Each structure stands twice: as C-alpha cells, then as structure tokens.
C-alpha cells in the first residue's frame, strides 16, 4: 500500500477544482434549504443550466466568454423564476416534486438525440475551456502536492476557484447576518409568522431561489471547467443528494458547512476508493492482493467503496447529528 499517494491524492480530491464545484453547488443549496427551508431537490438542474450556458455558447456559437458567463447567471435566475412562480405559492412539498422533475427534464433534454446538434447529447461538449487556459498564469508543468501532481491548468482552476468561493461565501455570510437573512430564517421556521409580521414571504423565497440557484450554476461551471467537458450524466439527481449529504455533514445554515462538508465527503470517498483499489491490486511480481479475493477483488471494490463511505458518513452523522459546525442547541428544536 502506497499510503503517501493515497493520502496526497485524497487530500487533493478534497480541495480540487472539482471539490470547489461541489462546495459552490452545496452553498447554493444551503441558501435554499439551510436558511430559507426550501426543499429544492433539483439543485443539479441549476448546476446543469450553469454548465451548459457556458459550454453551448462558446463551443457552438463562439461567444466571447464574458457573455457566456453573463448567460450563466441570467439562465439560473430565469430557472429560479420559473420554479418560483409555479410552485412557491403552493405547499412546501410541491417545490420538492417540481424541482426534482425539472432537474430531470433538463438532464434528459441535454441527453436527447434531438438536441445533439446543440448539446452534444450523451458525449457532451468540449473545447469551451480555451479562455480559461489562456487566462492561466501558471506554467503548464504545474506543481506536486507531495505525491500528487497538479497540472498548471488545474492549479489555476484551484486557485481562482478558491478565490471565487471565498467571495461567494463572504457575500452569503454578509447576507445571512443582515435583517434580510433574518427574514429568510423566519420563513424557514414558520412562514405564516413571517407573514403576520408584514413580510412578503413569496418575494423573499424567490430571491432565495435566485441567489442559491445562481451560486449552484457557478458550481456547475466549475465542474465542467475541471472536466473540460460538459456531459448530462454529471447532473443526475445523485448530485443533488450528495449536496444534501454535504451540507448536513458540514452543518446546515452555516457558511462554512458546505466547504467543510465537501472536504470530508470527498476525502472519505476518495480515500476508501483508492485504498480498496490498492488493497485488491495484483502485479506480476506480487500476485496475491492484500485483501483475500473471496471477500473482495478488483472487479467489485468499486461498488463497495460507496458502501464503506456510506457507513463512515452515517457514523459521522449519528455521532454528531448537528454536523461539524452545526449548533447543538438548534438541533434540539428541529421542528420540520
């Protein structure tokens, strides 16, 4: 077992551009669910809209990248308005149903053969990252994080991504400590109480959807910038459920929650994954793997990693139900 490689690779996974994408998507969801109490089960849809609002205009229509970035925000806001006007006046569970449905419609449309001319279908779109490569100030050979190599482009995505994430997190922090954030929390606790005190609940929910949706869309952008390819498969509902896992791990309604939650989540998954990979590996010089083949072998460890990771995460939640940064006091009054 090469523990140096396992550790450095797991650490890198937890802070990489891919991780930043998860952090952003979960931060957006935290605005919806953590602060406002909106049951959005379609956050992957916002991420998909963000990703394709960048990749389609650039790959297909040669838009200058700032225009595509603007489109990312505009389409996220448009999706929020669509979801908001159709469901926010109804009971809370309708939002959950509609968001999950809309996110799936988005993914299936992106996957559809009918739209392959535009979206690239199942193969997705590539070649939209050249602007980011041109902006990259780091040399191509990159750096070594102990035993993990990070190429220049990924290092640039990592550094710029962390700056972006800090800006977003600061904005969320400033908003949530303001009286505006207080109204959001009151809606989460009891929207009728907020109404009885003269707060326009619908308008606040809509604003929350737009802001969290836009943050999620930016997360989607980072995801596909990292992969240098945008494919519909990356925006399945599991992405949304991972985001929920992340904010619950890190602590709901905490600005640090999605960041720390993502790190733990991705670290555990990656650590288990490559540890099992190494423990089941055989080489010509060493034909017996570390773990007995009747228990596990190279063909089935991939399924097992999610089980083991799931156990680890479940244990974390059981022993610290409020999450890493959550407030134990608040947990006691979890009314919903």
């Amino acid at each position, binding site marked *: 077992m090469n523990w140096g490689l396992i550790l450095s690779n797991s650490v890198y996974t937890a802070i990489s551009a891919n991780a930043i994408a998860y952090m952003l998507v979960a931060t957006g969801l935290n605005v919806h669910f953590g602060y406002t109490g909106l049951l959005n089960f379609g956050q992957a849809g916002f991420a998909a809209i963000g990703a394709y609002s960048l990749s389609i205009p650039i790959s297909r229509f040669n838009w200058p990248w700032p225009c595509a970035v603007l489109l990312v925000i505009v389409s996220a806001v448009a999706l929020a308005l669509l979801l908001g006007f159709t469901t926010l006046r109804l009971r809370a569970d309708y939002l959950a149903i509609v968001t999950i449905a809309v996110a799936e419609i988005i993914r299936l449309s992106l996957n559809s053969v009918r739209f392959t001319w535009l979206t690239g279908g199942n193969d997705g779109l590539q070649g939209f990252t050249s602007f980011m490569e041109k902006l990259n100030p780091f040399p191509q050979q990159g750096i070594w994080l102990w035993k993990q190599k990070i190429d220049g482009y990924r290092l640039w995505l990592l550094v710029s991504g962390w700056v972006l994430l800090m800006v977003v997190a600061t904005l969320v922090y*400033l908003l949530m400590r303001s*009286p505006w*954030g207080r109204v959001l929390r009151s809606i989460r606790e009891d929207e009728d109480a907020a109404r009885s005190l*003269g707060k326009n609940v619908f308008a606040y929910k809509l604003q929350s959807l737009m802001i969290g949706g836009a943050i999620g869309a930016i997360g989607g952008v980072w995801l596909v910038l990292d992969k240098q390819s945008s494919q519909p498969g990356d925006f399945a509902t599991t992405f949304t459920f991972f985001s929920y896992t992340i904010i619950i791990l890190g602590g709901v309604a905490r600005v640090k929650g999605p960041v720390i939650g993502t790190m733990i989540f991705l670290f555990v998954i990656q650590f288990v994954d490559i540890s099992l990979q190494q423990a089941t590996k055989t080489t010509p010089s060493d034909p017996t793997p570390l773990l007995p083949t009747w228990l596990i072998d190279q063909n089935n460890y991939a399924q097992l990693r999610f089980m083991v990771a799931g156990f680890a995460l479940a244990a974390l939640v059981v022993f610290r139900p409020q999450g890493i940064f959550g407030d134990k*006091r608040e947990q006691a*009054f979890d009314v919903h």
Partner: protein
Amino acid sequence: MSTDTSAVPFESVPGSQKPDAILVVDNVTRSFGGLTAVNVAHLEIPRHRITALIGPNGAGKTTLFNLLTGFDEPDTGEWKFNGLSLGGVAAHKVARRGMVRTFQLTKALSRMTIIDNMRLGARDQRGESVWRGIIRPIWASQEQDITQKAEDLLERFNLAHMRDELAGSLSGGQRKLLEMARALMVEPEMVMLDEPMAGVNPALKQSLLQHIKVLRDEGRTVLFVEHDMDMVREISDWIIVMAQGEVIAEGTFEDVGSNSKVVDAYLGSHHDVDLGDHT
C-alpha cells in the same frame, strides 16, 4: 387619550353600529365542506377600545381571525379596515396596513433567538432589502434602535432574561408572551390576539391585562379571543359573542351574561332555543 369604559354608548344587538368603527365586516362566510364555520352578516369593531370575541369551542372565532387578516379566503363578503377594503389583500399587506394578529397555536420561530424574533417584527427595515443588507453601515443604526425597542418590550413582558435563548426553549405561556410582544414590534393600529392568556400563569396574567389596557390607552384598538371570563370581564369595553359561525350577541359583560342565547350557546341546549337561522 382617556376612554370612559363605564359608558359605552353602543347598542347591545348583534351587528350594532359604532360611530367611527375601525373594522366593518359585511356578509363574510366561510364553509369547510358542508360545515359553515363563519357566517357574519354585519359586524363593527369600535376604535380605541378593547373588544372581546367569545364563544364556545368551534364557534368560528379563529376562522374569522384568519379571514380578516388574509390567512384564509372567505366564500363571500367584504370587510373594511379604516375605510379601505381588505378583501383579497395578502396577509403581509394586512399587517403593514396596521392590523396585526397573533395565533392561537403559537408560532414562535424556534431556531431563532428571542431577540431576533422580536427584531423581525419591526417595520420598514432598511437591511431587509437584499442589496442594502450586504452593507452593514446602511442598517446598523436602525438595527440598534430596533434592538432597544425590542429589549424594552421584552422587559415589559418578563422575557428580558431569555433575550439570547432560542425561542424553541420557551414554555407554552412564554411563547404566548413572546408572540404578543413580537406583534407589538410592528406598531399595529389594531391588535388581534387569539387566546393571549391561554397557559399564562395567574400572576403574570394580571400584568398582561395591564399591558393590554396600556395598548388601548396608547390609542390602539384591541380585539381578542378568550375563554377566561374573568379576564374578559376585567378588561373588555365591549363583548361580541359567536356561536356556530354567527354573531349571536353583543354588549357589555353584564348585557351578554344575561342574554339567554349566550347562556344556551355555552351550555349547548340548542333543543329548546333557536340560536338563529340554522337547523
């Protein structure tokens, strides 16, 4: 402002006219399935008075509150607050116009502190807009004023020591107090309290009664639902009695107490006396 409670000059009949009524209700009905929960032909609430709305369980008092404050929609009817129609007006706008209600089943914002519960109630907060919220200096001074006002009210309602606790940790009675104090943060012209005394201990009740009288003396109008007849007798200037959705009597405590329809409504002997139009 002084109000002479001994000589209330209104007529003791259901739907009687009041000079300068703050709230006038006409033909408001609401039914759930086959059950007519509210059927109020005409009702006027006198300005600058404390009016009690009483009636047996299920009389439709809470439903009427919900209708008047925009939390439920009536099947028919209209009502005017300060001469302006409130039919179809959203609940938050009703509150902004100066008519603020509390809930029978309290709605404490559990995972927020008591002081934040209170601050939320304040009107026209600059920091409640998303752009201005980001920049603290824009709202910091107003926030200070709001906090001061909230602390004064908490003091009045014996909750000051709980200032930074989460509202979820309050007892049932304390939640009632918090909800009333929070409603006052809105500076309402008319306060509608749904069973404000339920679960409040007798010693505190006395001081709460005084607070409610102070509200009137400050020039506010109070309409409250209550089952505790001692309290009703002690502070009400006027009493309205509902039964089976209708207003069956109005008057002073003495008038109402001697009204046979009211007695029957409470004792439930509908067989002998016809309470109104229903069968």
